[in-house]
């Protein structure tokens, strides 16, 4: 049963649910983890190179999985292949297509030069992954690490603005729907960017810490302090933008405000998680929590949960407001089937699997890192 409150137009249902919430979450992590790339290659934080490598694996696997979310969301998923054949350059989805392809090419090029040395080393071992690594060297044998590093730097730096554009495209999509009160404002794009940075850094740090823990290696907390402070700062920016957006909505959409507040009340839990979570990351990240490993771990986990709530509050409440502006429609979240929670879980597993695959082929640590240890 689809629940409504007040009179609503007969065709109205909340069309986009969990999959479209997941999609910007994934693409946000892709974009956010490039911030670490920028730190390493643009600002010279060489001690973050290992974290950057882990972030790169994460970004690549999520970049490959992310488009599956909107694709599963289509009522005709296979027809997604039509998009390049009947292009409508005015459509936000065409923009997505172009940006995704560009970013993928850049990320793959960066991967090649980042990992080529590891592939060559790995290919010497005869097992299955070694063979795959051998193929991935594309015939390269003699590697000049400095030359490669330059290329990695180039592609890494290109990937930063591209990934930011890629994630802000969803914000652009929502803000272009000016008939929907909570969406039709350019603020949405900024919120997308700020929360992308929060979730990207949070996810990369979490995966890095867990990975090191599983392998029984030490994490140098001092290295992680800079990304944690950036994480906290952007959580603060995100919170500020949210409050600003709220004031703007209240001030400009006075007539629709009763509906907006009704939709927000219906998603109260998510707004609460978002505000409390971001506030915790903001204050915690700037406090002594950024000096301990457990503190940073908690901050990363909370940042991910908070940003998931941000994504929810961006996608769902806007759609609940009826186009007749007299009532709201509640979302109908399914467990199985199209747009079901099961599909989202499958996507998480797929991303995890890809991440493990990349780590197995290229190695958790880079060859140069191993040399240093030896």
């Amino acid at each position, binding site marked *: 049963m689809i629940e409504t409150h007040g*009179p609503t137009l*007969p*065709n109205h249902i909340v069309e986009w649910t969990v999959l479209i919430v997941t999609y910007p979450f994934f693409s946000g992590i892709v974009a956010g983890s490039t911030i670490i790339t920028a730190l390493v290659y643009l600002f010279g934080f060489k001690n973050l190179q290992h974290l950057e490598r882990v972030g790169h694996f994460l970004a690549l696997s999520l970049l490959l999985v992310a488009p599956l979310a909107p694709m599963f969301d*289509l*009522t005709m998923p296979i027809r997604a292949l039509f998009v390049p054949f009947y292009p409508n350059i005015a459509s*936000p989805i065409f923009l997505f297509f172009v940006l995704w392809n560009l970013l993928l090419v850049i990320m793959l090029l960066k991967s090649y030069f980042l990992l080529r040395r590891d592939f060559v080393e790995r290919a010497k071992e005869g097992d299955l992954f070694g063979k795959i690594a051998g193929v991935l060297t594309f015939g390269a044998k003699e590697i000049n690490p400095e030359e490669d590093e330059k290329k990695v730097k180039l592609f890494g730096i290109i990937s930063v603005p591209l990934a930011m554009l890629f994630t802000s495209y969803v914000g652009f999509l929502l803000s272009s729907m000016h008939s929907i009160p909570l969406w039709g404002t350019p603020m949405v794009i900024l919120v997308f960017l700020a929360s992308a940075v929060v979730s990207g850094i949070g996810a990369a740090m979490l995966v890095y810490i867990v990975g090191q823990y599983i392998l029984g290696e030490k994490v140098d907390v001092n290295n992680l302090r800079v990304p944690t402070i950036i994480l906290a700062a952007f959580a603060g920016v995100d919170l500020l933008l949210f409050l600003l957006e709220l004031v703007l909505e209240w001030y400009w959409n006075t*007539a629709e405000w009763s509906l907006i507040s009704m939709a927000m009340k219906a998603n109260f839990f998510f707004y609460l998680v978002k505000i409390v979570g971001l506030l915790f990351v903001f204050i915690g990240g700037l406090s002594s929590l950024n000096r301990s490993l457990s503190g940073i771990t908690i901050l990363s986990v909370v940042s991910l949960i908070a940003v998931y709530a941000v994504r929810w509050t961006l996608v769902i409440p806007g759609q609940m407001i009826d186009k007749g502006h007299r009532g709201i429609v509640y979302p109908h979240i399914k467990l199985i089937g199209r747009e079901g929670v099961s599909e989202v879980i499958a996507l998480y597993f797929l991303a995890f699997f890809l991440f493990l695959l990349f780590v197995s082929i290229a190695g958790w640590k880079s060859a140069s890192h191993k040399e240093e240890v030896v």
Partner: protein
Amino acid sequence: MGNTAQESKTSRRGFLKALTVGAVATCSGAVFESARAERTYPEQKGKHRFVYVIDVRKCIGCDACVAACKAERNTPLGVFNTWVEKWEVGYTDPNTGETRVKVLNVPKLCNHCENPPCVKVCPVHATYRDENDGLVLQRYERCIGCRLCEQACPYGVRYIDPIMVVMNKCTWCDHRVRNGLKPACVEVCPTKAREFGDLSDPNDPIWELLNNNSIQVLKPEEGTKPRVFYIGLEAIEGMYVGTGSSTKNQHSPAIWTDPADGKVYTYNVRMQTNKFRELR
């Protein structure tokens, strides 16, 4: 000189009135769907210039059009190409000055906008505007089902067809009108509240209807240039009224006093519940 003073006085009063009405709208609740006079007809680009005219004063809310559309287009359960909303609108009787309530039956359907946001966002041109006659139509075999157009349409007329599993909407009965017939919903309307015509024909009776009446369109502020013209919404033109708290499917009537002239208005909306919505 006197004239100018008179004009500036009235305009100042109008401004003050607008200000107070705006203030009341700010304090009251939900927005009343806007309707404003707009008399820009579609350009002649091809063979036809179709327009649809709805005279809400004549509509008796019998829903014959809804039934006819369901039959004509074979529309599945739970979705609608057209529906009839009931608005209870308070007004001040011009003769006696008393406050009265009238019921308006407001039929809705796709506006076949001249500047359709749904067409702009479609990634594969599955929804397109035929410049030859101004119809906004669907290529069902191409639609990928992203529902971007549904989000972009300000009028809530689009839906995913539960049987075809792609986007569908009112077509203004393109199969009929391109062959010289009227849309099914127009054909069955017992009071001629719904009219359809072709502006490219100077003798079309639709010209008379348009020329002799004040014309409004829905949500003109969206810039979509809707091509369903309404007659009879001028009494509530631009009025923003609070709707108070609402029950399940009916707003309790809101009483609203215009502070500029002390006139009292009420407003209430009722719509049928769509019990089959989840069939989508």
